């Protein structure tokens, strides 16, 4: 049996860790409440923008616009694919960062030329350590997503796409399905592909041609950047919320584990103490008997 001192040291270190994990649990649950509020506000916009775009594409399939150009003339080995990977800024969030990175690596294998744009420090460090080239100018944090940040990211992507240094752009992020279930998704951002969108409202009762005021090009020039911005913002908010949620779950289970461990340690400590007392009494009694 381990000595009393050893057990006491072990207990102390577990207690210290418990304090940390518990504090992290409290912080992430407070953050989660804020993030979920934001998610609730954003979700209708996010869903509406998707359904509206899909509706528009559905009713005007013959659009020719630079944002819809799939560039079939570029051969597969020369295509450059951009990935926006949304990870957390910190680790200790269960499998959250790992899942995102795994999906990103899996998708990257299928592409000839890859450009990585990583949001969040955890992903950035991982890809740098593994010798993968990432855009070092692209420094955005995953904390407290704002519309301004998503606008900047969106503009960068649109610029790169228009100047031809990117042929496709994908967005890898984590979506909150419900409070216990999260899913890592890969979403095609550019060029706009009508096939990507779910068919909303299959049975719309108008099948007429949609007109664009003042012109298709003018509307698409406004609509697509707005869509890209909205999509990125939605992804950032979803990811932030998922990160906080998985950190909360991870910290809760580690706090619970620490408590269980403390309980069993306390038990062995008491046993060791009792054994020591019993031994002392035996020694005293033995000594007293020998003195008689």
């Amino acid at each position, binding site marked *: 049996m381990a000595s009393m001192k050893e057990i006491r040291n072990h207990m102390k270190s577990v207690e210290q860790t418990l304090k940390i994990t518990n504090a992290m649990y409290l912080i992430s649950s407070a953050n989660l409440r804020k993030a979920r509020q934001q998610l609730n*506000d*954003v979700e*209708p*916009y996010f869903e*509406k*923008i998707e359904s*509206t775009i899909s*509706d*528009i594409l559905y*009713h005007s399939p013959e659009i020719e616009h630079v944002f819809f150009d799939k560039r079939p003339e570029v051969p597969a080995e020369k295509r450059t694919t951009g990935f926006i990977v949304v990870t957390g800024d910190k680790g200790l969030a269960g499998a959250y960062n790992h899942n995102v990175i795994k999906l990103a690596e899996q998708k990257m294998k299928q592409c000839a030329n890859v450009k990585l744009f990583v949001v969040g420090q955890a992903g950035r460090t991982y890809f740098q350590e593994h010798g993968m080239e990432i855009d070092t100018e692209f420094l955005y944090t995953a904390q407290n997503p704002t*519309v301004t940040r998503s606008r900047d990211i969106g*503009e960068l992507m649109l610029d790169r796409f228009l100047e031809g240094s990117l042929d496709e752009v994908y967005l890898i992020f984590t979506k909150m399905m419900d409070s216990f279930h999260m899913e890592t998704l890969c979403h095609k951002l550019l060029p706009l592909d009508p096939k990507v969108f779910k068919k909303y409202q299959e049975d*719309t009762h*108008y099948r*007429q*041609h*949609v*007109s*664009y*005021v*003042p012109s298709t090009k*003018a*509307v698409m*020039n*406004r*609509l697509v950047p*707005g869509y890209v911005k*909205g999509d990125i*913002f939605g992804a950032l908010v979803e990811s932030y919320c998922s990160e906080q949620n998985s950190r909360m779950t991870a910290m809760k289970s580690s706090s619970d584990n620490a408590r269980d461990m403390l309980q069993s340690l306390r038990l062995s400590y008491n046993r060791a103490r009792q054994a020591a007392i019993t031994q002392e009494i035996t020694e005293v009694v033995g000594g007293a008997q020998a003195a008689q």
Partner: protein
Amino acid sequence: MDNPKHFCLEIITPTKQFYTGPAKALILPAVDGQMGVYANHEPVVTAIEPGQLYYQVDEEWEHVVVGAGFAEIKPDCAILLVSTAERPEEIDFNRAQEAKKRAEERLRQKQSIHEYYHSKAALARAMARLKTRK
């Protein structure tokens, strides 16, 4: 919609669902000027400029200041996705004036094309706000 003269209007921003409900008429700031919408309008998709938007509910005209965005108009409903939407009473006159000054100052300096567009957009937003409060 029970009343054939009404259509369903949705004004949505990234931070909140501004308005969802019936409306009788709608005037929105499109790229080439104001555009009026009644029920049974032809299907139209258009871009929205920062500016003033009006919609009519029960004979009352509601006044809103919106940011850039786009609108999908169908015979029975209109969906407006805009970056911001505010009622006139929510607008802080002094703040808008400050913002206008800042934007004008930025426009006088050399900037990248993106910064230029941002400043222009900020100026347009501030002007729309100020116009409503005057």
